[in-house]
């Protein structure tokens, strides 16, 4: 009965895709929906000890042919001599995200699953993730989406129906370990859903300049397998790599912080350099902060309206520059379907500049405010 209800809800929801209402207009919810935050945005805990071998590699999800088509032969520098994509065999799956309606703010709806891979290495403290990531996007049809969400809820309920709270390394996997029923079932689901024939986009974040610059690029795979560079919103035509540079002192002193500079209406170039921000007027900083909040708001921006570097850098710039140095206060997230405590950002604080929106820097789990907002929007969408 419960399964039918959820399936019906998803089927209906998929016929009516539209952007979620802006967060400011949402009223706080008091009852929790059937689908939880951690059902649609799943972060694997980084294991320690022998469980390190249980993190999934890309086998069966991301082929060497697709990876090479995207980023060249192993070791190939990306544009401007930015680092090569990590070795495919070094990648491990650290996160999965379900989006029932990518493109909603443009009145389009493409359901997809995104897998987040990172190169990992062993350390005394357990597995460490490098400060880079590969995202693989898989297109789903309505039936596949409904089945995937349903399976996720089932997996969670199989171990109890408690509320798992805000986004975090998945509490069930944290409790059971990667050899537990949840992780095992989830691995099976991932392999079923994320098949190479559904792969339609791969993106890359690398790190250079002694860990002070982050480089973003990506490719789209056409239906016939043709590969085209991801078009980056509001960046000059032909831009292959967009970069954020924090300066060698790590003090938001990059000149310029973003390369190339965006020509879009919402621009982080001013707040991305604390010295430039310091010389700006109050009005200019206010305007820049409002732009930053819009970039973090999935009802305002998506990858078609803002570039990857701005999106990934928004949180550290907000926390370490706008709030810490200029006293800006960030409004709390709200949702019409989720209570406020589900929207808590448990893994959003990092004294270092952490551009991981839903993955790891070293052993530090990083979940950005925008990811919380996006996940809430997904729950809202699925709950219609």
């Amino acid at each position, binding site marked *: 009965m419960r399964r039918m209800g959820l399936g019906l809800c998803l089927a209906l929801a998929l016929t009516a895709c539209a952007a979620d209402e802006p967060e400011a207009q949402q009223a706080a919810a008091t009852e929790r929906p059937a689908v939880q935050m951690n059902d649609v945005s799943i972060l694997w805990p980084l294991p320690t000890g022998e469980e390190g071998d249980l993190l999934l590699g890309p086998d069966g999800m991301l082929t060497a042919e697709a990876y090479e088509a995207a980023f060249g032969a192993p070791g190939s520098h990306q544009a*401007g*001599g930015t680092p090569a994509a990590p070795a495919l065999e070094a990648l491990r799956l650290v996160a999965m995200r379900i989006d029932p309606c990518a493109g909603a703010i443009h009145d389009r709806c493409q359901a997809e699953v995104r897998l987040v891979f990172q190169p990992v290495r062993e350390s005394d403290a357990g597995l460490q993730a490098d400060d880079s990531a590969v995202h693989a996007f898989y297109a789903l049809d309505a039936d596949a989406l409904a089945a995937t969400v349903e399976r996720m809820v089932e997996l969670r309920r199989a171990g109890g129906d408690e509320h798992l709270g805000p986004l975090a390394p998945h509490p069930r996997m944290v409790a059971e370990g990667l050899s537990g029923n949840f992780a095992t079932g989830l691995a099976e689901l991932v392999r079923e859903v994320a098949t190479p024939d559904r792969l339609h986009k791969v993106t890359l974040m690398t790190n*250079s*300049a*002694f860990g002070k*610059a982050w480089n973003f690029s990506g490719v789209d795979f056409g239906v016939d397998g043709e590969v085209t560079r991801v078009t980056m919103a509001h960046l000059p035509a032909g831009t292959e790599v967009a970069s954020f*540079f924090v300066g060698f002192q790590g003090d938001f002193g990059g000149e*310029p912080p973003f390369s190339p500079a965006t020509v879009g209406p919402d621009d982080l170039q001013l707040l991305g350099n604390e010295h430039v921000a310091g010389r700006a007027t109050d009005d200019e900083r206010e305007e820049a902060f409002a732009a930053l909040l819009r970039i973090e708001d999935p009802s305002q921006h998506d990858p078609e309206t803002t570039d990857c570097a701005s999106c990934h850098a928004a949180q550290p710039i907000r926390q370490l520059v706008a709030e810490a140095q200029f006293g800006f206060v960030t409004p709390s997230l709200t949702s019409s379907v989720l209570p406020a405590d589900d929207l808590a950002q448990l893994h959003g604080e990092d004294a270092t500049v952490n551009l991981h929106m839903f993955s790891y820097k070293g052993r530090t789990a990083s979940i950005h405010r925008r990811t919380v907002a996006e996940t809430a929007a997904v729950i809202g969408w699925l709950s219609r």
Partner: protein
Amino acid sequence: MNRRRIMQGVAASLLLLSAGCADDDFESQVGELRQDSLNNPTDTGIDLEPGLWHDNVLVPGEGWHLYHFTPEQSGWVAFQMQAPPGHENLWSYLRIVDPEHNNEVWAGVGNKRTNLCEVIVNVDAGHTYDVIVTSQENSLLAAGATQETDGPYTVAVSPLTLDFEAGTE
């Protein structure tokens, strides 16, 4: 061409702009170790792009790395090289050459406190500039000495907005 003009051209192309002081290049093979040099740098084949940082490592025998930069727009850029502060044998050194402009050269030796070297040039769109990266020590090698530079660095070309009034133009 008269002799003096030829001399001047040769002088211009051979100028060793170590910015501190400079000795003759060392190009010979020493033992089994390959030795590149100012006049025979190792061409990385990499075209730098504005604002993108490229990481690399200087190793003994390969102490002169050559990059290329062809700006799409004219204007001021900062060529920057950063190496680890305090590194024992890598003191950042940059040499920018405009071969199309009678081998005009700008060179810089980095700040010893930060090991950041910055050379600011007003570049012309469409010109290709040679960007040579090395360590100051390599420009001071005596004949027969081998390169010892062994360390990581990162290099970039970053656009600058500078609004100077007309000077000697």
